């Protein structure tokens, strides 16, 4: 996912480590590449990924790209890597979105396009916004129900 990141190393600042959730800063330098960095999912778990991989293939066929996905989270004014009270697919009209979105006002299409063009490959900047679950027109995946049940059970496997 190449992009224009030139000089990014100079953009450092101090961020409060709320709840001590991030590893404490020690100035660590990476001096080796442990073998596990290249390891994939355990063999017995790979067999269970079939439905998710089929879903990804369907998204690929629908031309969902990294830029498309970035547009989707900017449109919803979400920081995907921050904690939220609900998963994105649980953000329905029945659930108050207060505290989950960074801005209450919608982010303009021009602003979204500008952000995404800065953060993904220039060839991808003309991507369109694809609705996320459970917005009108989202891409339905046939095996969704099975997949959800399976994955809900697996979530606790995060290290």
């Amino acid at each position, binding site marked *: 996912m190449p992009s224009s990141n030139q000089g990014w190393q100079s953009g450092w600042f101090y961020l409060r480590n709320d709840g001590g959730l991030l*590893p404490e*800063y020690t100035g660590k330098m*990476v001096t080796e590449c442990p073998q596990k960095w290249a390891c994939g*999912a355990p063999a017995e778990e790979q067999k269970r*990924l079939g439905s998710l991989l089929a*879903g990804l293939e369907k998204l*690929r066929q629908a031309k969902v790209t990294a830029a498309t996905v970035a547009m989707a989270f900017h449109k919803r004014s*979400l920081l995907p890597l921050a904690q939220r009270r609900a998963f994105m697919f649980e953000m329905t009209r029945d659930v108050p979105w207060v505290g989950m979105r960074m801005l209450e006002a919608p982010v303009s299409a021009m602003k979204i396009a500008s952000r995404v063009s800065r953060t993904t490959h220039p060839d991808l900047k003309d991507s369109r916004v694809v609705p996320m679950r459970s917005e009108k027109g989202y891409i339905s995946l046939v095996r969704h129900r099975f*997949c959800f049940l399976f*994955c809900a059970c697996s979530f606790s496997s995060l290290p």
Partner: protein
Amino acid sequence: MAGDDVWPPSNMTRSALDARVKGGLLRPITDVGSPEWMAPPVSDREPNLPPGYVVCFLLFLDRGFGTPAGRLIRAILHYYGVELHNLNPNSVMHAAVFTTVCEGFLGVPAHWNLWLHLFKAHMSARYEGGEKIPLRVSGCTLQLRQARSH
């Protein structure tokens, strides 16, 4: 193995960070005694941060990082045994896109084994006369596995 000698000096300003707040990419300061974020003073040639803070980069915010940190980014840092400043913007973007694909398109929480299946990490370094020099910033690059990239 000696590393890069110095951190690149920070060019971060309060106004640049305020602009991120305005754009909805950074939370506003609500606690002046223990602010959510701080631009480093000019005198800080390298990070000299108070306890309870980490070093973050402006481009991480543009690519979907935020606090309190969610489970996937915590899992990544824990599993690969690195700190936030050991990542780079593209790695953060991979994690943000992955989370959104899982939650927003597949309809599942971020799935750790799927992450491991799709991504790997490698050490990024500077090479000088054939010698590998570790980096003060970055060092752990998260990459989509080639066989999974189409």
